[in-house]
């Protein structure tokens, strides 16, 4: 293996591995049997019917199961809901494209060259790409209003604004809806409750490295 400019040349190993794979699969009697449904796609499973209202209620219940907070508000009350969710946080980082006025001492994302600078800020507000009711998950594709990934990671409080019409019922629905974001090369972050660990005697502790408090503001 030669190394040039810090990049090793592994073309020999590449050829050898591909050759081994082909040999393993082409010898007599080693073919994989073809399954009847080569396109075993999850979206084949029909999603159970549910009204928008039922989906929203399920989402709230499941998010609260993770010991995250949910604040519900009408679109006209978003400013007040944000103020309530931010509580005593004295500094807040606001992503580019976040459309609502945020109270408090603000750090704008456009003034943040390097996300390391967010360390020490108390809270972050973001929107989301969508949310999943069955699992109580919010998904960020880091589009406008959601910020670079580090923004929603370093502060200790994450306030995430989700519109009721962004909540889908199942994981397969969410994955299908997220395809355009992935094809556009966007990273995704799936968040289900505050960071947690069960590594010590399997006692669940909320809050290790990510935000120790997650507050979902649901706009209905």
């Amino acid at each position: 293996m030669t190394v040039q400019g810090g990049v090793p040349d592994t073309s020999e190993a590449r050829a050898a591995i591909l050759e081994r794979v082909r040999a393993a699969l082409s010898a007599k009697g080693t073919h994989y049997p073809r399954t009847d449904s080569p396109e075993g796609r999850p979206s084949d499973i029909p999603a159970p019917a549910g009204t928008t209202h039922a989906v929203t209620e399920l989402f709230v219940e499941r998010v609260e199961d993770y010991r995250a907070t949910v604040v519900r508000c009408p679109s006209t009350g978003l400013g007040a809901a944000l103020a309530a969710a931010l509580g005593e946080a004295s500094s807040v980082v606001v992503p580019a494209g976040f459309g609502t006025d945020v109270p408090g001492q603000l750090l704008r994302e456009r003034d943040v060259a390097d996300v390391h600078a967010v360390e020490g800020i108390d809270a972050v507000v973001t929107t989301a790409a969508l949310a999943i009711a069955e699992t109580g998950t919010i998904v960020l594709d880091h589009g406008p209003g959601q910020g670079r990934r580090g923004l929603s990671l370093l502060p200790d409080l994450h306030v995430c604004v989700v519109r009721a019409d962004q909540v889908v019922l199942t994981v397969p629905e969410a994955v299908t809806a997220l395809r355009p974001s992935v094809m556009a090369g966007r990273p995704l972050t799936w968040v289900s409750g505050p960071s947690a660990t069960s590594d010590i005697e399997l006692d669940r502790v909320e809050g290790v490295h990510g935000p120790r408090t997650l507050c979902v503001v649901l706009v209905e």
Partner: protein
Amino acid sequence: MSRTFVGMPTFPVAAREAVADTQLRRNLGHATATIRARRTAAVGEVDDWEALRVKGAQAKDRVLADLDTYLLQLEARLTEAGATVHWARDAAEANAIVVAIAKDRIADDPTPEVVKVKSMATQEIGLNEALEAAGIHAWETDLAELIVQLGDDLPSHILVPAIHRNRAEVREIFRREMVTVGRPAPDDLTDEPARLAEAARLHLREKFLRAKVAVSGANFAVAETGTLVVVESEGNGRMCLTLPDTLISVVGIEKLIPTWEDLAVFMELLPRSSTGERMNPYTSMWTGVTSTDGRPDGPQDVHVVLVDNGRTTVLADVVGRHALRCIRCSACLNVCPVYERVGGHAYGSVYPGPIGAVLGPQLRGRQGALEQSLPYASTLCGACFDACPVRIEIPELLVHLRTKVVDDHRGGVPTPEAAARKAGAFTFTKASRLEKAQRAATAAGRLLGRRTHLTRLPWPLSAWSEARDAPAPPTENFRQWWARTRAGDAGDERGPQGEGQ
């Protein structure tokens, strides 16, 4: 700094030591029972879990059936997205690649270091030791891995590597060791899990903010899109995947899944099977070098190392290859009656439990005594298959591997077991021989009085009785009973007189 599994004793030897450790058994019993209950509840919520398992198994089989094509597709997508793809035939090559990249980026730093996300592949190849040998510190950032690393210990479970440690032991390790490698543990540290987690948060934060290079694995690699996926709980993964300049991901070639939509199946199967949650707290998905709305987001120097290290050998075995479906959820460990009692260390590798017993001898070969003993580290009860989210028929694989171990020993000096089997075959092929043997056994049984079990047998039978009780032979067998009670009916083939007449 952590110890390695090299030179481990065979399973029965290691198991005897583990079973005698009552603290370990208490910790393990509590832990496995807790996760089992959580998994049962989380799986029970899904309407058709079985259909999901089938889809998971099919998606993995589709990838493995055309693995060369999918690997090339993944490589092409990753390259288009700005990542550099490297290939490694074995552990040594993979380590050399990571060390070369890391050295180039940080060799001039006063204390060269990388931060690591928990990854089975990097443990398998012994990357931390290779980095240390090159003068680079590798910091494990998963809480359990941190406990294992600071305690100079070995992981004992895929999901909760420090499952064998209780809170008091963790507190001691933190107080003693954190100060030697960075920010010390707080003076008033108690053994509350929340306080211990806080200590880890403070200790590692400075490392996350300082590190220039991160090393990760990947739970899944989507061939169609070039997207890598890391599933985690604590946020240490997100830190490593977004803050440093350079990201090196070490990915086994069996981690691929075909399409983006297939990912949905695994995002349902993995968290419910693994931690027994509807969804794990954090999942990161990224495709090569990423930017959001024109601003760089995360590492801009991205490398993916595709590792074989025995996997193509497994692929060539039409029965054994099913083990390559494994998504490292560890559900099979928690339901295994053997694992629950002996814990992970006895399996002698980073892959413990039933899946380790079938992966170890296949990935590393069957030359070692430990690898030869692993296929026997099971009662073949089948609980592991029932729990497996991708339907790996582990009991079938274990029997398959036992056959191979036996075949390996054909010719040459027979093992005591082979000699015993031969003697058995000789006895059973002729009725008069069997009768003689039975007469001898019942005579021995009469000498034993009222004992119902034999706990210790003389050599070479001691090999059997070391791990099992043997029932005492009966004082009378069927033939003898028949002769005694029906002595006058010799020759009457219809059985006892008068019946049916």
